């Protein structure tokens, strides 16, 4: 049993599984975009379903029963989304220690056997430490030196911190799914119609009162901005007076008040507000910031490691790896090797070996 669980754990943590789940999620999203979806307001469902029956006939019942009209809340969509969340979670846990160690600079020196398995490597006949140091530290990057039983290892790195972007990206995706779930489960929306200015209307924990209505216009007479002057009342007492404009909601005790519509009428202006409580929203936005920063650093600033290994037999091995452009990295490795050759005056280096 333990063996099966371990196998399942490692299967779900595989990069290939995550990649194909992303493909699956993209396909399901594309499919969902083709299906008409129930409006968010439950009060409008009955009329919408009647219209759907007119449009699809008997098929409408089947579509409704199978969840296709609420596709993005149905198992059709949440199964791949949930599987992806699980995969991301396991993938992050499996790789966390390694990525954190690399990102924070606690890199374990590879053994000569491990170096020999690196994708790109060049061997140069020299034991001149000064040459290796000059080659590797001649650039913009810090070089660290580790003596090991008479042999010397030098390390040159680029974009080490960017490896932490991977963690930020995965954490961002997980937080995004958590935030969206919180929004779905704990979010509350209530339409508030104020048809009589000056009279308080209950929103739930407090009441709102419309004290004024303004429309700014462009020179051609079209509306430029709407503004509702709203007073917020708690236990009959005004606790806040705030103008609410389109795109500029008012806020009180975790509830946002959005201006949604306005209908002029003979009895006064009829204003529609939306009272919104969404505890998942800030988490989703924080996740989006993490995700954006994570993808920027992970994919645009690839981590590169270059090792110089001074062996007892009078050869220096330059070996490196990158998470980014392999061809560009191979070219840089050749340039480094060429610089090393110029320092020590040996034969031209052989082209890099791509052995994996």
């Amino acid at each position, binding site marked *: 049993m333990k063996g099966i669980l371990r196998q399942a754990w490692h299967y779900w943590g595989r*990069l*290939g599984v*995550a*990649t194909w789940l*992303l*493909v699956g*999620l*993209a396909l399901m*999203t*594309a499919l*969902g*975009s*083709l299906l*008409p*979806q129930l*409006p*968010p307001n439950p009060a409008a469902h009955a009329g919408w379903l009647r219209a759907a029956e007119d*449009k699809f006939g008997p098929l409408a019942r089947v579509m409704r029963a199978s969840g296709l009209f609420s*596709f*993005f809340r149905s198992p059709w969509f949440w199964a791949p989304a949930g599987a992806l969340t699980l995969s991301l979670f396991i993938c992050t846990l499996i790789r966390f220690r390694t990525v954190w160690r690399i990102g924070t600079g606690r890199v374990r020196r590879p053994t000569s056997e491990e170096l020999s398995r690196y994708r790109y490597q060049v061997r140069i006949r020299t034991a001149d430490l000064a040459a290796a140091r000059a080659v590797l530290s001649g650039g913009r990057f810090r070089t660290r030196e580790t003596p090991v039983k008479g042999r010397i290892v030098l390390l040159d790195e680029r974009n080490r911190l960017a490896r932490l972007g991977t963690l930020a990206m995965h954490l961002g995706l997980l937080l995004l799914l958590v935030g*969206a779930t919180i*929004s779905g489960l704990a979010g509350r*929306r209530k339409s508030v119609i104020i048809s009589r200015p000056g009279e308080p209307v209950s929103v739930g924990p407090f009441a709102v009162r419309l004290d004024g209505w303004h429309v700014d216009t*462009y020179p*051609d007479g*079209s*509306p*430029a*901005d*709407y503004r509702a002057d709203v007073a917020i009342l708690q236990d009959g007492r005004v606790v806040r007076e705030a103008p609410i*404009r*389109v*795109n*500029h*909601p008012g806020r009180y005790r975790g509830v*946002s008040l*959005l201006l*949604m519509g306005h209908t002029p009428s003979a009895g006064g202006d009829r204003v529609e507000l*939306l009272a*919104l409580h*969404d505890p998942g*929203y800030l988490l*989703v*936005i924080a996740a*989006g*910031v993490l*995700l*954006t920063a994570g*993808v*920027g650093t*992970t*994919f*645009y600033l*690839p981590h590169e490691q270059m090792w110089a290994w001074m062996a007892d037999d009078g050869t220096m091995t330059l070996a490196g790896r990158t*998470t*980014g*452009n*392999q*061809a*560009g990295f191979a070219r840089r490795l050749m340039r480094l090797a060429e610089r090393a050759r110029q320092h020590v005056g040996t034969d031209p280096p052989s082209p890099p070996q791509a052995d994996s």
Partner: protein
Amino acid sequence: MLNIGFDALLAATLLYLAYLAWQRLWLGQVAAAAAGLALLVLAAGLVLRGVAAGRWPLTSHFEFALLFGWATLAAYLLLERATRQPVFGAFVTPLAVGMLSYALLGFPSAERVARPVSPVLRSVWLEIHVLSAALGYGAGAVAAGMSVLFLVRERRPQAEGLPAAEIIEAATRQTVAAGFPFLSLALLAGAIWAQTAWGHYWGWEPKECWALVTWLVYLVFLHGSALRGWRGRRLAWLALLGFACTLMTFVGVDWLVEAARLESLHVF
């Protein structure tokens, strides 16, 4: 002004194609100069439009098409500056020409007039959303052009004057990697705007769905290439698929909403 910019871009495209055919250095240099001129003139045209309308020119479908074409050209010129490969222009600038042709010829003159925007479109988050999307899509268009070049290169390995396949592939990856954060920022800023305007940061509307599909395709591209070692044709076809999804998000969704009689708030 916009028409002059378009003419300069058309000239640049013809010169890049001439460079591809005859491989004369001066042709590449003149093409790059013409493309740079087109970029400046189009930018000036957009700025003048913004000044005339008293707002950023980022709200209508027509304006986004202009911006998309401009961003494609800007992303391409940055790539050419980094790679010194004018031959890329022969495969990328036709896409910018296509987008600007769509903008300048595909809209009736009434829709091209700079009008004041409705209150819901007056938001800094919308401006960030649109600008980021244009830059991300522009990078995607460049990657698509490069992928066509890659596939041509693969079919004709002996063709003279074309860069090595690995150089083309590296440039494609760099372009997608550079554009992807902008696509992410576009989704983020769009979500913030939707929350303040409509009260939901994500509504699973067709436009939003396809923006997410586009983002996921490019994420698969980057994930596959950086971590799973995907190379060659698979990456090229993925970049083309990403661009096809981009076009679906931009123009196809409007058609889909109309054809399937779906509901959408993304109609401006």
